[in-house]
């Protein structure tokens, strides 16, 4: 193993343990009965918070790599994304079991009729699909579709943040900060998105021109 790979390997182990800390603290507080008057709500909120935070950190990797030029950052992205899913799974499990008491009728009404729960559920399904297809084998099997599928992570991020915004009564500060971070991260991508859009447009107009259906750019500027 090269030194660089060795460092990444150690780094991944450290990151694994670091991301586990909020879950261990949660478990500790639950066992010690330190979750306050409404422990189920505390479990829900804390697991949900960490899912959104880790998802935003995952989304920050690629802009960070571009800004700093440190390519090795990408090697940590999958683990961060999987941890975002892990906390979402914890959040969803607490909701199904401890909060709703596995009352499927109530749960289905929630998912179908309460928009913030609908969005949270969709975000969870997206993260589930991404987690399942996160292995090297799946990457190989899905080929170019893999990239297209994993772009849905942006939708999961957006839905997760709106899920939070919509459940708040009056204090929009925390979900507001998450939304601001999400928008900033999206703006970083706007440049490459614009380029892709321009590329697609150029391809499209080129085709049209070849078919004699559209004026060329030089004709337009006359």
């Amino acid at each position, binding site marked *: 193993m090269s030194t660089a790979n060795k460092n990444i390997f150690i780094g991944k182990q450290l990151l694994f343990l670091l991301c586990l800390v909020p879950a261990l603290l949660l478990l500790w507080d639950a066992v010690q009965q330190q979750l306050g008057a409404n422990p189920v709500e505390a479990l829900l909120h804390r697991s949900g918070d960490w899912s959104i935070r880790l998802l935003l950190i995952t989304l920050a990797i690629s802009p960070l790599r571009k800004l700093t030029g440190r390519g090795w950052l990408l090697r940590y992205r999958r683990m961060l994304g999987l941890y975002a899913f892990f906390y979402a799974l914890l959040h969803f499990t607490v909701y199904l079991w401890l909060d709703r008491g596995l009352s499927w009728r109530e749960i289905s*009404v929630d998912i179908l009729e309460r*928009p913030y729960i609908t969005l949270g559920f969709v975000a969870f399904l997206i993260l589930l699909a991404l987690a399942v297809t996160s292995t090297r084998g799946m990457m190989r099997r899905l080929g170019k579709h893999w990239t297209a599928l994993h772009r849905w992570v942006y939708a999961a991020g957006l839905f997760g943040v709106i899920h939070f915004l919509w459940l708040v009564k*009056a204090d929009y500060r925390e979900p507001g900060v998450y939304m601001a971070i999400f928008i900033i991260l999206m703006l970083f991508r706007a440049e490459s998105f614009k380029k892709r859009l321009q590329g697609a447009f150029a391809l499209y107009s080129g085709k049209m021109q070849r078919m004699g259906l559209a004026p060329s750019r030089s004709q337009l500027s006359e």
Partner: protein
Amino acid sequence: MLIRRASGIRSSEITSQSVYNQRREFLKSGIYAFAGLAMPGLALALTDKPGKLKPIANLHPGKYRVDAEVTDYKWITTYNNFTEFGHGKSTPAKTARKFKTRPWTVKVDGECENPGKIDIDDLLSVFTQEERIYRFRCVEAWSMVVPWVGFPLGDLLKRFKPTSKAKYVLFETLHDPKRMPNQRYPGLDWPYREGLRMDEAMHPLTILSTGLYGEVLPNQNGAPLRLVVPWKYGFKSIKSIVKISFSEKQPPTTWNGKAPDEYGFFANVNPKVDHPRWSQAKHRVLGGGIFSGREKTRMFNGYADEVASLYRGMNLKKNF
């Protein structure tokens, strides 16, 4: 709860169950007892047990006592929606610690013959302070059972002789950003305002509360004076009241003004009318632990026998 009352014993001599329990707790924990004796007065500290605040003098047991386990002092005093002192549930217990509740006067005006002011200490001495153990149901679908101390709101209102034009009563919380730090920020339209229809205000279940667990109210619970309307969602029970006004028209109220489709003026507890974002059919009883599950919410929070007649013929879905 069965309280045997032999004739010849004045009700003031009877110790209420919670005061009794509390004394036992007090004696059991010598350290607490010592701290309580060493620090009398109104100083408030975060504590698991009562015993640090001033006891209510001449506390009467009263007859309104729900047959349910009273919620721990710890939960009642650390899980509070008191936006004036911050947004988190545990924030008010910390940020309201230094809040001064003396001097404190309540101004009464509007459609009445005798407008005027009344001091909190007069309220405490003039009105018989009675313990009332009520269910408390928050619009956020959690609940607790609270041993309030207080007196019927109607007894106070009568003294100001409301006129025939007085159809509603409006309440206002103190507005002083220096003392209530979160009022420096937007969030709610300060001061917090709540209102009742006259018949709701005069109902014997409606009280002005001055205490909790036999002692004066902890700051985070709305000291020194708050409203308690047990058949309505908690946000109607306005805290730290400085003003009461009689009016002819339905007054604007804080949460109703902020989100009229979510928080009605009446806000009667009703398991059949959901909040637009969540169900009101069940609620979580505070302090029950992780595996406790939820309980079914009852119409008018279990006070239907006493208050349903106030709303006879009214469409409760429309007037939620």
